[in-house]
């Protein structure tokens, strides 16, 4: 347990030391989301800006009025407002894929990584990360497909009973198990990505193998660390929503913005914490291996 605690706190320390990465990613996502919401904003402003009826959305949130707004012909089709946001979500994902190698290198460094090194790492590893992403998608996709298929079959079976809560709890437990399995795969590929960057390994299959071996050998420690941080993330999300509900007046746009963005920033921070934990683990493991290799070996004295 103390190893786990050390790992989690070591990851936290790395993430704290390099918090600028979290902030930059957060600002990038905020900017993308802002651009993605432009169409929505334009549609809404055209209808709401000069209407007294809009008060029902400002001082409170009347769901019926909101649905009326969405159904309004001048608001346009809902996909027109949602597609840009979806596109920018994909752009953020691609940006994350592009810049993550620099972040991992920065996490492994004991000094502030110069900008050119950061970008060099990004550039050198971009296609490796794309390949790793494809491997991850295939492996995680197949496993998720099998597990969700099994869960669906189980749900169908439980649905035949009249115990209404059984399907719910089966679904809940099943989903948690699937998330744990996917977390293990995520750990595996987080370590593979770290290996690719820190060893500058062009053959990603070797890094995938390294990641797999390390995950298999230290599954308990790594999984507990990731789950602890994931629980913190859920707690952050719940606390943010409760805080929003409790202290932000319905008409306070600024208050909602601050609480909402603070929650999202902390939420993003937890994922970077996980990445930092993986890097801390990887660096520690490599140091152990190198120390083992450098211990001098002596021939046993010959006693006569």
């Amino acid at each position, binding site marked *: 347990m103390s190893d786990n605690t050390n790992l989690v706190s070591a990851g936290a320390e790395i993430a704290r030391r390099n918090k600028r990465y979290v902030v930059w990613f957060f600002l990038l*996502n905020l900017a993308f989301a802002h651009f993605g919401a432009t169409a929505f904003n334009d549609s809404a402003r055209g209808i709401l800006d000069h209407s*007294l009826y809009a008060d029902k959305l400002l001082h409170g949130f009347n769901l019926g009025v909101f649905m009326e707004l969405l159904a309004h012909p001048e608001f346009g089709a809902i996909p027109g407002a949602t597609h840009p946001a979806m596109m920018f979500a994909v752009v953020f994902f691609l940006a994350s894929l592009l810049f993550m190698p620099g972040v991992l290198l920065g996490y492994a460094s004991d000094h502030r990584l110069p900008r050119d090194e950061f970008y060099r790492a990004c550039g050198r590893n971009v296609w490796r990360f794309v390949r790793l992403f494809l491997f991850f998608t295939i492996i995680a996709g197949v496993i998720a497909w099998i597990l969700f298929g099994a869960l669906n079959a189980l749900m169908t079976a439980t649905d035949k009973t009249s115990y*209404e809560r059984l399907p719910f709890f089966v679904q809940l437990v099943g989903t948690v198990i699937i998330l744990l399995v996917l977390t293990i795969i995520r750990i595996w590929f987080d370590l593979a990505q770290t290996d690719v960057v820190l060893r500058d390994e062009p053959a990603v299959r070797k890094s995938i193998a390294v990641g797999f071996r390390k995950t298999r050998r230290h599954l308990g420690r790594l999984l507990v660390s990731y789950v602890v941080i994931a629980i913190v993330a859920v707690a952050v999300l719940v606390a943010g929503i409760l805080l929003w509900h409790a202290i932000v007046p319905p008409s306070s746009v600024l208050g909602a913005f601050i609480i909402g963005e603070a929650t*999202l920033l902390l939420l993003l921070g937890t994922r970077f914490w996980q990445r930092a934990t993986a890097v801390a683990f990887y660096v520690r493991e490599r140091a152990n291996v190198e120390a083992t290799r450098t211990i001098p070996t002596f021939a046993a004295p010959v006693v006569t």
Partner: protein
Amino acid sequence: MYVRLTLFVCLMVSLVAPVFAQSAGSGMAIPATTSAINSPTPLSQRVVAYDMDAKYDAKAHTLEATETLTYHNLTGQALDTFPFHLYLNAFQPTSTWIREGKREGTRGQDFEKWQSKSYGAEEIKSFEVMGQGDFTSQLQYVHPDDNNKDDRTVVQVHLSRPIPADGYVQFKIKFHDQFPETLERTGWNRDFVLGGQWFPKVGIWWHGAWNCHQFHAYTEFFADFGVYDVKLTVPQFEVVGAGGIEVGNVNNPDGTKTVSYHADDIHDFAWTASPHYLIYNDTFQSSMGPVKLRIMVQPAHWSQVGREARVLKESMDRFDRWYGPYPYKTLTLVDPDPGSQAFGMEYPTFITGGTTWWEPEGLHFGSAEAIEHEFGHQYWYGMVATNEFEDAWMDEGINEYAQVKVMDSIYGPQTSALNLWGVTAGERDEQRVFFTGVSDLDPIAKNGWQYADSNSYGGVTYGKTAMVLLTLENIIGEDTMRKAMHTYFLRYRYTHPTKEDFLKTIEEVSGRDLRWYFNQAVYGTQVLDYEVLKISSVPVDWYKENLKEKKGETEYDCNVWIHRKGEFVIPIDIEIKFDNGDKVRERWDGQDRWIRYEYRKKTKVESVEVDPDHKLEFDRNNFNNSRTAEANPSPARKLTNYWTCISQFCAQLLAWWLV
């Protein structure tokens, strides 16, 4: 002269009498029982008496039954043809119900693929007319609405001898039911069953002709009042509930039990059975006497039963005080099997609600709304028994209007549908959402099966009718409207009124000619949509060089344009607010397409609002009913902020798992 005439009449009667099968002297009669109602005398003009003995096979979901139907011919003329509904035959692939469902949608089933468990059937094994013999081989399926030869939901028998006016006839029918997995609020789900529309039911003689429509994808039912005596034989482990009062419960040696029910002055009979029901008993004191409430609850929903009982009793209280008394001695509320399509249905003295074990308190549009709505049908359908095929709005729409009033009264107008985590919605907001998307497709007054599609049927029949009646209430006043509804209920309970009966009652009580309104709102498809087109405030001395505008000193020519966008013409109020706080009210008859109001004032127009008292509930677009001179970006910013947060969260989640 008088003696001769009398002798002639006696002679003619003696010659003609053998032609008629039955007469008033045949011993047949509709019982005048009152044991199931809080009244010493019958409440309705009883036309039918059903005496049924049914045995349910819980494994095969089938039912074997005998039905003795006594019919009292009160049509004023001899009848030799009788049509019967066989509703369960609707659940067959080539039926009109399924065809329409495939084409236009049903209430809950899209039939992408036909499944054998959806099959339902109502098969007549034998059909005997007392005194005339067996007519089984002479039964004919008829298709009065669409000539679909494959539809078997209406069967007709032609008697060899007519039944005279005021005469009686008795039919003895043996039939076999195959229930589908719940469809249209009837059938089985796991080990639950809801027996709705399960027996051959005679059509209704209405306005000089038989009214016996085929079963359509989203129409409901229409039948005569009468007396029901029903014996249900089910396995002993079943918990049974039904309409009327329970009069017997006997265990049989073969592991079954027979539960007997009796009901007075109702026009349909439904029942349910499941081994899992828990029973919650309560009482409501109506102005005609105590009503025994029996709530049949799923075990997982027991924590919700207090809330269900509360909303039921509060609804009964409002209806009793506002519209009239509930006269029956019982009301059974069924919480059907989870996942079944038996949620939210009405039968006389028997309704289904439905909930979930996790339903939060503030989600009023879930079970609370369903319970209120289905109870409301005890009035608008149960007692005021309108034709649900041809005038669906008279039960569903009038009931939706009552629902808005009752739910607003219980939970508050702003939160009567939803009050959860700061998100709210009133019942009238919900009704608006129903109809705004389909507001000009069909008029309210239309045969239920002839709507453009199920969305139009739902949006117009439920939502638009409710909004039209709420607007009407704002025109004639809430008290007058309540008095009109009360009068309508008392005058037409236990009868089958037409749409004009309802509309004329409102005109009569309000003392106003409302035809101009009804012609557009009920019979027409005109859309009601007024907008503030534009506003302007231009300094009178605009042409002067170096003009400096000073508040309270500079004079302005203020203009306001109002536009009638829709075809619906109705007089409206307009409120113009100036930035010094002055307000001006104008009234426009709406006859022209637009109107401009002009003012010269030492102040600018701040805002203009059409219908400032919010009386026009069914104006399609409320956003354009007002216009402010200055833009207020806060509402859009608030929504955009929500949207930004949600899309950021989704993007982070995507990146969390994939990178």
